[in-house]
């Protein structure tokens, strides 16, 4: 039924024209993906490359020869011979109106950059398209949940533009289906089951919805709480210390204090995903109970600071005593799930060759 746009890949040459230039593409690619590869700067707000294209914001419109109206490039497959224009006065006019419209429904246009990874997306586009005009004013949309008592996620829907990236990331990436879309039209509202709080929903507090939100309507409460920590925020790429998956993160620090965690969108193991521990559980770093030196229990029954040599001697003596008194199979050694594969390998080698037993396990096995 479509006259100009089909799946492509019908054996014909996979080339199309992008702003007058012949470009190649792989069948199945969308016009947006091709344009990205050729460095076109197409604005988007409902797009997250990890998610199924949705087609809601309409900012990614392009002109396609033979089609009366512009089409959304994110949901349109490239087709052989297709002639696409990504920039024109008409497209700019529509993009600006669309941006003026979203600006008109929100309470704040600019949010604290600590809100989340994508939280400045809308504001950046408003500047790029000169859309801070105050046109199209009227009622604002969305009802915030300042009273959701969780310590991690701000739910400030008065700044929500109904792009549904949060709902889709929760379903498609996290598989939790904790949040959904309630009502319709201008009354559209992000909700949990029966409009409750996150704690009573299927939410695992992974924080992915925060990091994809383009306006800061969903925001990282822990990072925002660092407002008073002095200094510039620095990012350091590292690996989450919690488990063997090895999710890449960018630690946000001010001075020598960790103030938040950003998932690395290009992390090979996680593509921007984290779990509640990697995302929020970094308070141990500066906690007063954290061990920063070995402790050895003395004859008085109390723990006392010791050197590594003393501590290792003490441990070795204890292990050998157990083998002498009860035999080598009296030992059972469990590796931590936080240890990487190499350390787990070392552990089993040490236990088998050194202690002489094969009673080993890993806490991630359960």
């Amino acid at each position, binding site marked *: 039924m479509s006259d100009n746009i089909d799946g492509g890949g019908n054996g014909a040459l996979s080339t199309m024209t992008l702003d007058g230039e012949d470009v190649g593409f792989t069948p199945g690619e969308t016009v947006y993906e091709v344009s990205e590869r050729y460095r076109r700067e197409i604005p988007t707000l409902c797009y997250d490359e990890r998610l199924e294209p949705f*087609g809601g914001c309409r900012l990614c419109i392009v002109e396609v020869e033979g089609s009366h109206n512009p089409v959304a490039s994110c949901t349109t497959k490239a087709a052989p011979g297709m002639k696409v224009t990504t920039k024109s006065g008409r497209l700019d006019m529509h993009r600006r109106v669309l941006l003026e419209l979203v600006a008109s429904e929100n309470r704040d246009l600019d949010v604290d950059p600590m809100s989340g990874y994508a939280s400045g997306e809308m504001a950046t586009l408003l500047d790029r398209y000169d859309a801070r005009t105050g046109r199209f004013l009227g009622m604002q949309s969305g009802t915030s949940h300042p009273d959701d008592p969780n310590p991690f996620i701000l739910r400030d829907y008065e700044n929500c533009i109904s792009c549904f990236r949060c709902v889709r990331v929760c379903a498609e990436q996290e598989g939790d289906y904790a949040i959904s*879309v309630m009502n319709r039209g201008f009354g559209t509202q992000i909700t949990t089951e029966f*409009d409750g709080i996150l704690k009573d929903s299927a939410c695992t507090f992974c924080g992915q919805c925060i990091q994809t939100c383009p306006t800061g309507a969903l925001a990282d409460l822990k990072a925002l709480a660092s407002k008073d920590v002095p200094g510039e925020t620095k990012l350091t790429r590292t690996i989450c210390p919690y488990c063997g998956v090895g999710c890449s993160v960018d630690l946000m620090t001010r001075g020598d204090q960790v103030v938040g965690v950003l998932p690395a969108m290009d992390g090979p193991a996680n593509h921007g995903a984290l779990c509640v521990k990697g995302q929020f559980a970094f308070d141990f770093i500066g906690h007063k109970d954290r061990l920063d030196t070995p402790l050895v229990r003395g004859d008085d029954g109390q723990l006392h600071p010791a050197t590594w040599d003393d501590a290792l001697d003490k441990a070795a003596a204890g292990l050998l005593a157990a083998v002498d008194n009860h035999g080598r199979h009296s030992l059972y050694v469990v590796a931590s799930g936080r240890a990487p594969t190499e350390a787990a390998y070392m552990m089993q080698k040490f236990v088998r060759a050194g202690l002489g037993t094969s009673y080993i396990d890993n806490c991630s096995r359960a």
Partner: protein
Amino acid sequence: MTRPSDEQLHERWRDQPAPLLPLLHELHERDGYLSEEALRGVAKALRIPIAELFGTVTFYHHFAREPGGLEAPRVCTGPVCRLRGAGDLLDSLDGAVSMPCSGRCDEPVPVLRGSSTLVGLAADALESRPSPLPPAAPAGIEECIFAEMRTEGRAGLEGYRSSGGYDALKTAVLESTGPEVIRTITDSGLAGRGGAGFPTGRKWSAVADAAGDPKTIVCNADEGEPGCFKDRVIMDYDPHAVIEGMALAAFATGATRGFIYLRYEYPETEGILEAAIAEAEAAGLLGDGILGSDVDFKLYVRRGAGAYICGEETSLLNSLEGKHPFPRNRPPYPVTHGFEGLPTVVNNVETLAACAPILRNGPDWYRGLGRGDNAGTKIISLSGDVVRPGNYEIPLGLPLRELIDDWAGGAYEGRNVQAVTMAGISGGFLAGEDLDVDLDEASVRERGSMLGAGGIMVFDDSRDMIDVAHSAMEFFAHESCGKCFPCRIGTQRLTERLAGKAGPKELSDWLDEVRDLGETMKETSACGLGMAAPLISESLVKYFPERVAQHVTSVR
């Protein structure tokens, strides 16, 4: 009757096709609302995440979520009913709530109570009545769909068969082939009567050629467009014509299952359809091995729950599948990726009802019913300020003036037609010289409007067009699904500007905003709702510039 338990209801529907809506309706009707407990049970039984199910339920206007909600009278406050005192009726009925146009504009004001429709102009005059038959056609006019409809007993199988009903199906399955049936439909020039006007033969042939089984025929009986009430009369008085049309489409395309997606606001029609389907099944006209052939076709009725957008075919398919009823991105189209991702015909009631007569009488006969180069007929639901509102089956190409003045008795005594809406309200207004238009898609489009599904509402010179435009835009805002930015925010902003609640006070700024908004909505919206809505404001400004100027400068 004992109250069925949740488990019994889950058991009844779990393995049926498209189970969510009927299961929700049974619970809704059993309890008078949808309780949290009932919804949690449904989520488990049908394996739908509870947050998603909750969100989906809130999408539909008519699912009550508080005890007693279903019993509250729901009063139509659509564009015509408003002129007939719907506001007063709403105020005078205890606990009443309003609902958008519910498709009874030829006999205002409809009130839904529980599962029945009452009509009347005052609280003490409400009564249940069968829906009005189409007025008789003027002498010399030959009809297709209405030709036999006014005959007593037509809705029953015997009545339907007495004038050749099911002969076309019989000839098709026993003596003809799918491609031959499609050729006849193509040659007749029949095009979709649901609004978009896509050639029916081409649609069927695309489904016949598409890979994937089972294929599905969906009859779009959602009829949510304000001012449209033609599908109701066809289903109420000629249900077998719709069933035969669907069976023919199934035979032609190889489909083995079908759904009639019926709008919520036609509760009586559901019973009529179910009875007709049972009769047809008993007579071997539906089910396995139709009329002794090897053709199988099983037909189900599914009832919507109050959402205009569910008439948009891809939103409808999502609704049937139990998903959130946002429209889908196209392509791919339903002909290849329809119900459950498989090839599907979606056709309007009127389109399907025309098929059997076309096959019986031949494509040339049908073509010849139109005027000039126009093929066939179109039902126009005419309402508002005319002497004889009702459904009229006109030859395509009939002048609008002829329909209003000669067929329907014209405006009321001492009044003149000020404006009409087209395509329900989706075509915006026509007024002034543009009222001299022929009723065919091409001629109406030349005036910047659409014929669409054929609803025309008449407003005489006693009406305030700002008020009319505001109520039309309010409908679009109420029904916008919320998927895409231009429509979700645009319909709201246009409504506020027509209400005088927001927007520039300077006329030129006001006009700039309304024009830019309209352009962007028309060109970038994700579906027809957002594309059509600004025709209201655009045509208002075009035909009534002085009234607009007065509105903008006088408010606040």
